[in-house]
């Protein structure tokens, strides 16, 4: 089943991460590459440390950052789908 607003997501275990200036850098061992997340991405990465509904992630970001609910939901879905494709996030429904 694909990722939906009602899905629960969590970080994939075992990733090595480090703060670099305002970004967070993640070492993706499976692809031997680095992924960098900016301020908003970093906040999402913090939120998905434990299993959480995407809807809840979007609500928190709506309170903390600028943008309409629709824009934020769209951006969060795109972002998490991309991380899932890189193997950094998994759906735990």
């Amino acid at each position: 089943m694909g990722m939906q607003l009602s899905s629960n997501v969590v970080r994939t275990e075992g990733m090595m991460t480090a703060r670099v200036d305002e970004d967070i850098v993640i070492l993706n061992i499976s692809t031997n590459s680095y992924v960098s997340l900016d301020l908003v991405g970093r906040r999402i990465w913090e939120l998905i440390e434990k299993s959480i509904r995407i809807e809840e992630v979007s609500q928190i970001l709506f309170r903390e950052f600028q943008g309409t609910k629709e824009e934020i939901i769209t951006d969060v879905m795109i972002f998490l789908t991309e991380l899932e494709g890189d193997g950094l996030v998994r759906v735990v429904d």
Partner: protein
Amino acid sequence: MRVQYRYLLYELIVETPFPCPMLQPAPLNGVTDVVIIDGVVSGVLEDRQESDSILWTETPARLLLRAGSRVGRFLIEEGVRVTLERASDVEDEMLAAFLSSWIIAALLRQRGTLILHASVAVTPRGAVAFSGLPGAGKTTTLAALLEQGCKMLADDITVLRFNKEGAVVVLPGISKLNLCEDAAVRMGYDLSKLPRNPRLGIKVMAPQNDAMAWEPAVLKAIYFLCRHAEEEVTCQTLRGQEKFSALQESMYWALLPEQQRGCFKLMTTLINQVSFSRIARPESRYTVNEVVETILCG
């Protein structure tokens, strides 16, 4: 009975069956860290059949270097042992050139250090590294800084490790510059008195014993040198992911996944410890003095 020679390279005492007169002799009471012996070396690694390139095949603990029919093969293992199957007519100078470059880099990598394709000077600001593609001006910039009274830590191969305080330091390398002929002439060297690097035929080797800093130094800055079509020297500070990308570009060898994991803390500490900048210089004119001024002014 065979003669073994002992040298000090990047803090390691290396015992070799061939002389390397350009290297620093090891202290008499030092314990040997690496032994190089003559022996038979297979053309493949039994635990990794697939080659990483025509030249080498690698696992985290072993690297097979196929240096060509006129040099031979090297098997570098566990950061402590090298077996050499030399070509019948290879000269000692060529083996010494391989030891001073790829062999020592492979040994140090197996020991968990981080190795950059960069040169390092100790300036009044502290240790400063210059990286960039071949021809970017790393050695020329280092040589110009030495003329300004700075000390040299490394040319071409820069080895980084943690010190006791948890800071990233640069280890003292080999006390010679590998200069292009035109740069050597411009700096006043007599080409007829400088030996040619047997591995890099277009470069000559200029000894720098008096200019060498023999102690590790905390790294303060990395400059990535490149050329551009503009007329001016520009300097741009890098941030966040840009630093990571630049560091990846500067690796002497791309890291294996297991090595990435082992070096991650060193890399991230380095990125947060030092300033990263990209210096672009015009292709159309000689600008080393402007580059040096940019570096010294920070």
